[in-house]
């Protein structure tokens, strides 16, 4: 049975979302499986199907959450998106937007409406090519998944250095830094 760390020390969660039996829909799951091979103290790993309410529960109590999902935005397969979801709205069209199932984008926005977002929520989207039934990623998506692994590892290095500088960094500071980072990227 799952043992949970005390709330205060549940710092980071790496959350892979997707359906393992729908080719590129498994991209997020593949990233998380790959990351599990690295020593990432303080981080837990979870794979989920993408049902929104369950996502809300999964990230409850975590300071930092990095979520990786496959997306369908009609972009070039393998295109990688990155959103700092704690400070910007997610474009619904990138995720499995649904009025029946309750999706990743909806979970993020519901959490925002209820003030239940993690302090830092990074969402990676990998543009898929083939969502039909079957196992394995297409070549472009597999390549993108590797890139996302490296990007997530960089995120974690940055987060670790932030928290070692200041164990009690607050939301305002985190936001400022994040804005600066985005500005620098642009």
């Amino acid at each position: 049975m799952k043992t949970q760390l005390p709330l205060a020390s549940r710092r980071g969660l790496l959350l892979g979302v997707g359906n393992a039996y729908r080719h590129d829909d498994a991209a997020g799951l593949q990233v998380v499986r790959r990351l599990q091979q690295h020593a990432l103290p303080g981080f837990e790993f979870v794979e989920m199907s993408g049902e929104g309410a369950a996502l809300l529960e999964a990230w409850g109590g975590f300071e930092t959450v990095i979520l990786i999902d496959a997306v369908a935005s009609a972009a070039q397969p393998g295109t990688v998106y990155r959103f700092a979801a704690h400070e910007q709205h997610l474009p619904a069209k990138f995720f499995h937007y649904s009025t029946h199932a309750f999706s990743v984008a909806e979970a993020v926005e519901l959490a925002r409406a209820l003030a239940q977002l993690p302090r830092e929520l990074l969402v990676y989207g990998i543009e898929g090519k083939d969502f039909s039934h079957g196992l394995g990623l297409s070549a472009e998506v597999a390549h993108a998944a590797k890139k996302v692994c490296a990007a997530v590892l960089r995120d974690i290095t940055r987060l670790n250095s932030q928290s070692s500088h200041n164990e009690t960094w607050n939301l305002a500071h985190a936001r400022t830094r994040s804005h600066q980072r985005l500005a620098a990227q642009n």
Partner: protein
Amino acid sequence: MKTKTIKVDYLARVEGEGGLYIKLKDNAVTEVKLKIFEPPRFFEAFLRGRNFSEAPDLTARICGICPIAYQMSAVHAMENAFGVKVEGQLRALRRLIYCGEWIESHALHVYMLHAPDFLGYEDAIRMAKDYPAVVQRGLQLKKSGNEIVTLVGGREIHPINVRVGGFYKVPTKAELAPLAERLKWARDAALETVRWTAKLNFPDFERDYEFVALHHPEEYPFNEGRLISNRGLDIAVSEFEQHFIEEHVPYSNALHAVRKEGGAYFVGPLARYNLNFDQLTPLARQAAQEAGIGKICRNPFQSIIVRSVETLYACEEALRIIAGYEMPDAPFVKVEPRAEGASGCGCTEAPRGILYHRYRLDGNGLILDAKIVPPTSQNQKTMENDLWQFVPKHIRLSQEKLTWQCEQAVRNYDPCISCATHFLKLEIEH
């Protein structure tokens, strides 16, 4: 001549896989095509050559919302094949984990998916801004179900503790006890949910359906019973394929399940309720009657009340099981393949209705073939028939409002989109 088309595209990134399409000509419905559900044919093929013991965990991956239902139908089918009966506390634990899944699934549908339709919100996010406490209650109620599944199932998502013959590990009495406190809260919240949903406005819509559900002489059905209907069907699960067939429909690769004798039928909460009202707890019966739905409910829009009543029942049933629980001596009954091969079937009540599994196995317990009939494919024809009748009555509504209500009419059945993928796009064509 005026032609109007209502089109709701589901699963748009999976080419040609799903959608709702209604065509109106001179204010009369000329076409209704619903193709929202792809049956799990991939999994049926994927299971061939696998060991019987893998079926529960593999089929659980078909649906992220109801993995327990798939596990339960699979284990019952295998036990049926090998002549094993699981009884006592192991049987009770199976009912308990099913209670957890019903609470999770029903709370999600009632609060996050269906209620926004009735209250005029596009989704639960917008509803949460005006009704934060109500949405929180829904999420907490759902969480109470998750906690049962996590504890008994080993983990919350894709539970892994269920096996043919029982469980890999069973909880101690002390491990189970803490669930009760939260479930007492959940029972009260479920009662509130019944009262709250009873106050919603329901379209005036009833049809004379054939309801099909499991029926057990002593309990509200989860895992066992005979398949009965309000039109005289009364068969053993092993006779399922003699009475129900899956029809190909020309506009979709999906299959529609129908009664061999009588066409479309209705599975799910409304069917269970109508055929098993007397098996509910006194509190659930009383709550239903106070909500004004009586012993028989034929308005599919009121399924939101019935789901709430079933949630209340599941909370009470879970509390009863926990109170009477004694840790069994062994976590499972031993199951051995039969040298001469075997075949078996199982049918259990998934949150959305009956889920049928049938397997044929060789002498080493390897799967030769598998058949899976999920509730959503059984309800598809009934959903279409509802729209044939619903649309003409509401033809004066604006296209936007009519589209909304058609989606709501489909949502009455809590269709399991997530069995295919997990998203939907909406499009209206003029």
